[in-house]
């Protein structure tokens, strides 16, 4: 029942965005983590993941009017755009190396469960208490050491390690509760 309601809501959101592109923001917020997680699993560095993700959403916005609702989640359409964008990149990067393209092409699986888990994890990080969230971002996104974070936040290293532990513990327990 919830899935049906979600699908109906998503359809309404898409139709609204097709009529008024400024409503695309809601679709972006809902699907950003899913697309980013999909792309990040398939590229080697963060800059490339950001480039491809940006390309996906810009392409989606331009082609939104052509999207036709057929009961398939909007995320699936975005992931297909991402897969095409990645395939194009790999073709360009490995011009004349068809074997490599084919090998990497096989990696594109739209329903990778790890992608779903990562997208969910990124969503949960945004709901952590502010101090834990800050430590997680500094430690894992910016890859700063505990000492640097402690200095920036004006707290002891022990306190930062505690925040890091509590944040990870909280994320793990919430992930366990979800299917």
């Amino acid at each position, binding site marked *: 029942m919830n899935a049906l309601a979600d699908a109906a809501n998503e359809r*309404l959101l898409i*139709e609204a965005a*097709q*009529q*008024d*592109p*400024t409503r*695309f*923001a809601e679709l*972006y*917020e809902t699907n*950003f*983590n899913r697309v*980013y*997680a999909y792309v*990040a*699993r398939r590229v080697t560095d*963060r800059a490339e*993941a*950001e480039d491809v*993700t*940006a390309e996906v*959403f*810009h392409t989606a*916005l331009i082609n939104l009017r052509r999207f036709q*609702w057929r009961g398939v989640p909007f995320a699936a359409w975005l992931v297909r755009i991402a897969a095409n964008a990645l395939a194009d990149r790999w073709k360009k990067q490995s011009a004349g190396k068809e074997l490599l393209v084919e090998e990497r092409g096989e990696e594109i699986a739209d329903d990778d469960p*790890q992608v779903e*888990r*990562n997208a969910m*994890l*990124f969503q949960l*990080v945004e709901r952590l208490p502010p101090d834990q969230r800050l430590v*997680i*971002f500094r*430690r*894992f*996104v910016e*890859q700063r*050491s*505990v000492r640097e974070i402690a200095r920036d936040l004006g707290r002891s290293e*022990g306190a930062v*390690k*505690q925040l*890091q*532990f509590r944040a*990870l*513990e909280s*994320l*793990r327990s919430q*992930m366990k509760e979800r299917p």
Partner: protein
Amino acid sequence: MSSVAICEELDFAIDGMFADVTPAGQPQSKEVRNLLNIAVALREMPRHEFKSRLGLELGWRAAGRPLAPNNATSVFQQGSRLYPVQGRSFAYSAAFHSAMAAAIFLCFALVKVQPLMQSASEHTATMLQPYIAVPLASGRVSGGGGGDHSKSPASHGELPRMTAQQISPPVVQIENLKPRLAAEPTVVGPPDTSTIAKNQLGDPLSKLMLPSNGTGIGGGIGSGEGGGVGSGRGGPGIGTGIFHIGNGVSAPRPIFTPEPEYSDEARQAKFQGIVSMWAVIGSDGHPRSLRIVRSLGMGLDEKALEAVRSWRFEPGMKDGHAVAVEMIVEVDFHLF
């Protein structure tokens, strides 16, 4: 194990993860190993600034505006902090822009400017384009009339004059005989249409002669809603009310779509493509007024019309009511 010891072990393991080495002193406790799995996934987490920045860019683009000016990086600073400055790209860009500026300057410096001989004749522009009705802000572009909740339907009469903008809706029975500011009753429509009423106003399709504004609401004449004339809803125009999708009007959803047959000619020629047709999906879900707008030929247009006539839709909705909606229906002819 105490929480302090776990925190230390976890942090040690995370440092090892970043350095891509397994820390010495194995084995890690099960709890730390579980948390490390989460930590590994977190390495792929997006930067918060990137998400906000991209959202902003999309918002600007969706609104039809150019991207925010601070999107560009600068050689003096890290620009938007989103994209780092790339020295070589910046140098190419600077060189290219300098060359272009020099070329423009040379054009101005070398070309001798001569005064233009201007014609003194005056021209009168004649507007040739047809009248296009201006959609209302609420998206109500269809016509339709209202009434004043009378018990009897709207009476027969003539349409009032059509204007691009309505000030006062037409009525058969005038309640306010001494208005402070009198305005001619009109309906929205092409202003050049000659519908100047000489007799009593009313609904031309009605056969009743007893004066009545009709059973609808909204101040016009008819059984619908709005300030126009007729049985439609939502507009100060005339008619039965056909809506466009969007602005509160949902698109009809096909629920029964039998496959069209292929014509023999097209099958033999292995001809494929899409036939597009304009259709009005009635509030009962039946398509009508079908008109081909993109033809394929080879008998496929007829087959498409035949198929779509048998289709059924979940009607478009507006304010919780099923309404007639115009839309483009596509029929895909595909050989497998």
